[in-house]
């Protein structure tokens, strides 16, 4: 093997070992079932502005349509990725937060924003976060939801269910608790 072939081979090995984050993301939208559903067009905002179903809201300056909080939660719950969505990624797409995670982050951000804007939604959000933490989602999503549930819990007794969650999820959620 001459020097150039040797170098080329070594570069390939280095790439395979992930020395340089050959981050990549798919062109176009993820396949159905990963994030989007048949009912929600991809790249569509779930809720730029959220309203509660049972209370009048301030007019919004945002051109985005208002979505009742319950509708938002249902859409997010439906579209959050299943744990399996990450299992079939290759090294390139998994090297950095894959699109399944980034879009889930945006959806969960809509929920957090809604509760921030209207704290009275917190009790309903708690139920959503509990279901999310217990759901079949990637650990990152479950841990985030668990941390959020804790922050909305009325008292410690309402968090007894978390002892049934995998240790890895609970440990990761502690990172979220302590870092933010």
């Amino acid at each position: 093997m001459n020097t150039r072939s040797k170098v080329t081979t070594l570069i390939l090995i280095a790439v395979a070992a992930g020395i340089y984050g050959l981050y990549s993301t798919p062109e176009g939208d993820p396949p159905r079932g990963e994030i989007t559903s048949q009912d929600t067009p991809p790249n569509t905002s779930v809720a730029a502005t959220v309203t509660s179903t049972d209370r009048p809201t301030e007019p919004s300056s945002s051109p985005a349509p208002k979505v009742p909080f319950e509708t938002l939660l249902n859409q997010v719950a439906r579209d959050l990725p299943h744990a399996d969505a990450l299992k079939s990624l290759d090294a390139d797409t998994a090297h950095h937060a894959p699109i399944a995670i980034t879009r889930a982050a945006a959806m969960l951000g809509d929920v957090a924003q809604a509760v921030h804007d209207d704290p009275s939604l917190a009790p309903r959000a708690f139920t959503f976060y509990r279901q999310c933490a217990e759901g079949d989602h990637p650990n990152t999503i479950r841990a985030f939801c668990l941390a959020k549930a804790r922050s909305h819990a009325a008292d410690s007794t309402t968090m007894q269910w978390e002892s049934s969650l995998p240790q890895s999820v609970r440990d990761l959620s502690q990172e979220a608790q302590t870092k933010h």
Partner: protein
Amino acid sequence: MKKIVLCAALLSSALQASDALAFGKSRGQPLDPGGEGRIRADSAVPKDQVNRLKQDLVWLQTLRSDATQSEFLSVMGLESSQPEQLQSWLYDRVHYLVNGNFIPSAKTVSPVLGRNFSYPNPGVLPEMELPVIQSPGHSSGYSSGQPLVHAEHEAKIVMANIGSALYLAGKKAGVLLGMSLDGIGNVPLTSPRTGVIMVGEGLFFDGYFGADVPPESTVRSAFRMETFFHEARHSDGNGKSLGFLHALCPAGHDYAGINACDRNLNGPYTVGALMLEHMAANCTDCSEKDRSIMQVLALDNRNRLLSQKDGQPAVSRDAAPEGVFERL
């Protein structure tokens, strides 16, 4: 006599390499907001991408520094988290940007000095954890029994520290390599700190977070900066820690079987998590949604930190960079 001739030849080549480096520094598209050219993009990097990254670096200057974790400072090796310090950290590790379509070839990568070039820490190389090769149909080496999610999509490169990978390749082959960068010239890879980063369209991909989080949004700036700092960390390390190579994620992990984890306390994923947490805590123009997104992304990074190796707790690796600058 032979030694004198050899030394003269090495010196001559080294001077050429140094000239090339100096030449490279003076050309290309400056990325840093001050226009000093501490990071330069080659002419193949689209101007809109350069401008977007420039704006991201300007945005970085708007961060507060009052809510700073001690872990952030210790891992980054910083005395403070002033934005200027963060930028300097980046400038120490990244000097060139190349287009995501850059392909290492005989035309673009070639030996600067001949065989048997003497690198520091000779024979000491990082451990590469290679995925198990599976049957056709599983590109990641992970057998999930499912079709490939992205098989029908063309992948777009987001960012890659190609300089560090080529330095390692050169070290393994015993030759000093140089890269030919469009509009800049030849750049000898005398250290992983030469800092050559590939930047691709994926970093600016419209649909990454959905339509209501467009590339120009604050949280996208944070995401690009996190990616940039992650890649910059690959410019660190020496010997066994050279390049801070990623480890295979273990069975049961979200990214099982893929080189998408770290077995240390100060690698690229730790840097990424800390940057996101720092930006979320110190952002001056972030919405609750922005902070929430950064928190999820930070957790995705922390999820990749393996706490043990062979039953031993993970430790911090030596981040001091390996290089041959002083010997040229």
